[in-house]
């Protein structure tokens, strides 16, 4: 029976920074906190990353259970297959987002048993009181996953918060419409607060919300400044570690813990830079992780790149913050915290619009790649097409083509597998591609020599 299959855990990836090595226990504690909250009867919300409700949920003392995170943990522990198979046997297609499939399989199993599935990774994912989806980007799971979960937990209500941003047009300044977008998002967030008050019995503490909004601004600035330190040659930290340090960014925002974590990482990176301590002893190639969620079960591939002298000083994935002082609006002047959140959201997603409009044929996503190539002195781009997440993977090839057309031809590699579904991954094939890519980088670098 598939339910008894318990695959071996993959050997832990070696991190370059001490801070990144602390993430594992932090995530474990976070999952334990949710389980403890369940025991204590505190309200729990199923939540998605990048939905800008972090401060709202925390100000109301509701405990977020990050469902993408839990699926990622199952993937990283190479223990997702049994949940995927469960979802499949429930009638869900295997071509859906495997985070969603893993979560649905888990929920179905937990609800059927009335307790956690056997040997659930890190104790399991607790039953929620509310589920907070969102309507944004191409991600249909944000809208549909929790509705589908209601098959198993029909008593748990869903709120899908609308979070649009103005679309990019090369011949149109989005500022003409930005106020409408902000107004709409504020209404959606007010609706969310009312929903949470109604279903959890918690009251919004508006002063606390303002404090957390301010803390979040400061954390965004600190993260941006910390990641900018990775421009150093040799680079002190790579994407492999950033796939750990994304945890405070997307799962712990609006907490002092996230701020303190980045304070510590910032100091560690400064120390490494002062001592010329790079991620690898002999840095030969500087690569950008130019898009795509990682294969959580194969993070060791980053070490494989490292073994070839390749480092990743920058990535677009999970870099979901900018320094708010770089926005063309002074957020500190906005007194309403919900309005503040809405403006931060709109300004983040439109951050590259002006730059793109200045370069004919460009696009904000491509402009971002160009800026990172220049700022971080990048030799090549690696992307990952995770077959089950259309949201982040649609357009990657288009971006590379565009980059070539409007900027320059830069070596690139597209890896293929999935975020969670290990059956899509072939280590020998992946490593052969990496070897070939390193050879092409060398050929391009030594051109003319």
């Amino acid at each position: 029976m598939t339910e008894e299959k318990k695959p071996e855990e993959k050997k832990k990836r070696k991190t370059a920074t001490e801070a990144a090595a602390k993430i594992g226990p932090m995530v474990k504690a976070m999952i334990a906190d949710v389980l403890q909250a369940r025991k204590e009867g505190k309200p729990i919300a199923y939540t998605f990353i990048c939905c800008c409700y972090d401060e709202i949920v925390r100000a109301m003392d509701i405990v977020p259970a990050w469902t993408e995170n839990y699926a990622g943990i199952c993937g990283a522990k190479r223990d997702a297959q049994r949940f995927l198979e469960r979802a499949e046997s429930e009638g869900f297609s295997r071509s859906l987002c495997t985070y969603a499939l893993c979560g649905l399989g888990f929920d179905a199993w937990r609800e059927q048993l009335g307790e956690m599935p056997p040997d659930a990774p890190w104790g399991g994912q607790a039953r929620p009181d509310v589920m907070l989806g969102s309507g944004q980007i191409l991600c249909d799971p944000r809208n549909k996953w929790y509705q589908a979960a209601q098959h198993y937990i029909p008593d748990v209500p869903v709120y899908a918060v609308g979070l649009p941003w103005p679309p990019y047009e090369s011949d149109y300044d989005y500022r003409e419409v930005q106020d409408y977008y902000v107004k709409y998002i504020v209404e959606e967030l007010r609706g969310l607060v009312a929903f949470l008050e109604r279903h959890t019995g918690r009251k919004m503490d508006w002063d606390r919300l303002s404090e957390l909004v301010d803390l979040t601004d400061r954390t965004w600035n600190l993260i941006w400044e910390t990641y900018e330190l990775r421009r150093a040659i040799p680079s002190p930290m790579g994407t492999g570690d950033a796939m750990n340090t994304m945890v405070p960014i997307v799962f712990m925002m609006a907490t002092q813990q996230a701020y303190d974590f980045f304070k510590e990482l910032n100091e560690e990176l400064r120390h490494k830079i002062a001592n010329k301590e790079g991620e690898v002893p002999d840095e030969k190639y500087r690569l950008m992780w130019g898009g795509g969620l990682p294969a959580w079960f194969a993070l060791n591939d980053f070490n494989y790149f490292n073994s070839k002298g390749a480092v990743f000083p920058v990535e677009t994935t999970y870099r979901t913050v900018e320094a708010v002082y770089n926005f063309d609006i002074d957020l500190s002047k906005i007194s309403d915290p919900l309005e503040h959140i809405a403006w931060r959201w709109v300004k983040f997603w439109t951050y590259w619009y002006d730059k793109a409009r200045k370069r004919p044929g460009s696009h904000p996503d491509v402009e971002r790649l160009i800026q990172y190539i220049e700022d971080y002195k990048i030799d090549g781009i690696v992307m990952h097409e995770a077959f089950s997440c259309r949201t982040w993977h649609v357009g990657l090839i288009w971006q590379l083509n565009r980059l070539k057309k409007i900027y320059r031809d830069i070596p690139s590699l597209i890896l293929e597998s999935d975020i969670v579904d290990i059956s899509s991954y072939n280590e020998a094939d992946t490593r052969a591609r990496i070897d070939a890519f390193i050879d092409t980088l060398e050929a391009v670098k030594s051109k003319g020599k």
Partner: protein
Amino acid sequence: MIHIAGVDIGSAFSKAVIMAENKIIAYQVKPSGGNYRLTAEQVTKGALTKAKLSLKDIDYVVATGYGAANVPFSREAVSDISCLARGVHYLFPTARTAIDIGGQFTRVFKLDKRGRATAFLLSEKCAAGSGRFLQVIAKVLQIDLKDIGELSLKSRNRVDFNTGCAVFAESEAISRIAEGAAKEDILAGLHRALAAKVQAMVERLGIEPDCALVGGGAKDIGLVRSIEESLACRLLTPDEPQIVAALGAALIAGEKAAAIKASR
């Protein structure tokens, strides 16, 4: 005299090339089977016997291909793209783009004037993008793989396939046979489908003449013509297209052996 060897353990076929003084003196090709280590020994031994040499006469061995880790007597493993590029450059110094149609993958790459790959693309992990596609259909049509090319050139009424998937193409081929379609027309249709996949990859990478076609797929004249038609260009094809990666591995082995000799 320095003797060198390149061993390419591919997913379908394994090849060994022995060289001396920048010339091929012997080579061997055999199906890979299930035991890569044994195949590596056998295919190398086969080539050595033809060259009237033994392994101890060889100064440097480079392995490549899917099973490169299973060649215990090699000094190092080099990526297949690098070996292919070196092999193509040796055979066709003017080639700047090359297509390799292998048993598991199709690779398209660009190479510079020194025979180094500067960019590459691999087909998706899907049988429809590689030589495997043709193997599947040859079995269905009960014809020998080596006869596919010539037979397909006789086609007068190409069957166009509705699918790019090898599994569906197999069942589509079966139903077309039942409807009375000629084998050559089915084969021509399959060549067209594979050529379209190759064309998409080449266009993504950007074609730069001259363009070479290597790998087992290049033995199929029908496929060669179909790709030429799609790309609207003549393709350079070697007499023995299957050994190009092994040849490149041997050339790299030669460079290494020469460097060692020079450093002494």
